[in-house]
């Protein structure tokens, strides 16, 4: 297996693994946050506005870890610097 196919295989596998493993923890965290927020809203409906706003901000914070993983896997698939380097070397 040459350099080109090795880099291609590793990039594709790692792109899938990155988004698969990286979305587990944020999913669990968001589920916990939403469950707790819904419970608090049921107990104190008067504070629903404040709870919802803070929930959105918190969800955005938690979600950003998943977004980082998405961006990394997108870079690996669509704009892989090592792949571009190897292609440029092979073209010489």
């Amino acid at each position, binding site marked *: 297996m040459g350099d080109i196919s090795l880099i291609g295989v590793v990039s594709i596998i790692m792109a899938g693994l990155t988004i698969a493993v990286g979305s587990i923890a944020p999913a669990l965290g968001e589920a916990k946050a939403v469950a707790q927020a819904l419970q608090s809203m049921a107990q104190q409906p008067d504070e629903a*506005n*404040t709870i919802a706003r803070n929930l959105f901000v918190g969800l*955005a914070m938690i979600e950003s870890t998943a977004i*980082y993983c*998405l*961006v990394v896997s*997108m870079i690996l698939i669509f704009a892989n610097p090592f792949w571009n380097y190897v292609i440029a070397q092979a073209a010489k």
Partner: protein
Amino acid sequence: MTTDQVILWQWKFISLNYTIIYTWGVMIFLTIFSALITRNLSEDINMSRWQNLLEIIVFGIENQIMEISLQNPRKYISFIGTLFIFISISNLLIIIPGYYPPTASLSTTAALALCVFVAVPVYGISEIGFIGYLKNYTRPSVFNLPFNIIGDISRTLALAVRLFGNIMSGNKVVAIMLSIAPLIFPVFIQLLGILTGLVQAYIFAVLAMVYIASATRIQRKT
């Protein structure tokens, strides 16, 4: 990969890509829209419906700012309101065919995040003074100084990448769905994209306000 790479016109090192064109398009649209409405405002109850629309938007943003920062919202509405309206309009206009949201490019979101990065010390210094703002970095103790500085930089990066990742992934999923099931499903994905676009605009504005509020709040000694 992004709208940065679709170049329409090039002259030496100056090039026009989709991001620049659509950013200016959104800006011109917003400016002309507001200028036309605010040309003849009325103070009594007989106002035009467009003035009513603008008042609803402005009052809604003011209320949100007041609830978050517990301060007079007039100082911040020019910055926070502009961020929210620009991002939400540029995300919502994806219902127009042939439009690519400029927020799906990392350069636009990085510029917006840099605006927040600069606005936080500007508001903080104008509110509590230079020394008071610098003292904020040494709370709760001097050992937190490097972590506060790292936090400043990393939250700017997070702002940029979060908005970019959400909008760009929405576009990518629509493109992938078009190649798999092109009949109806892309429409639903785009509906979801409109929802996430609005939520992301809200989150961006709220986070910017939270950062500014934490820099301007006068800390009591306990």
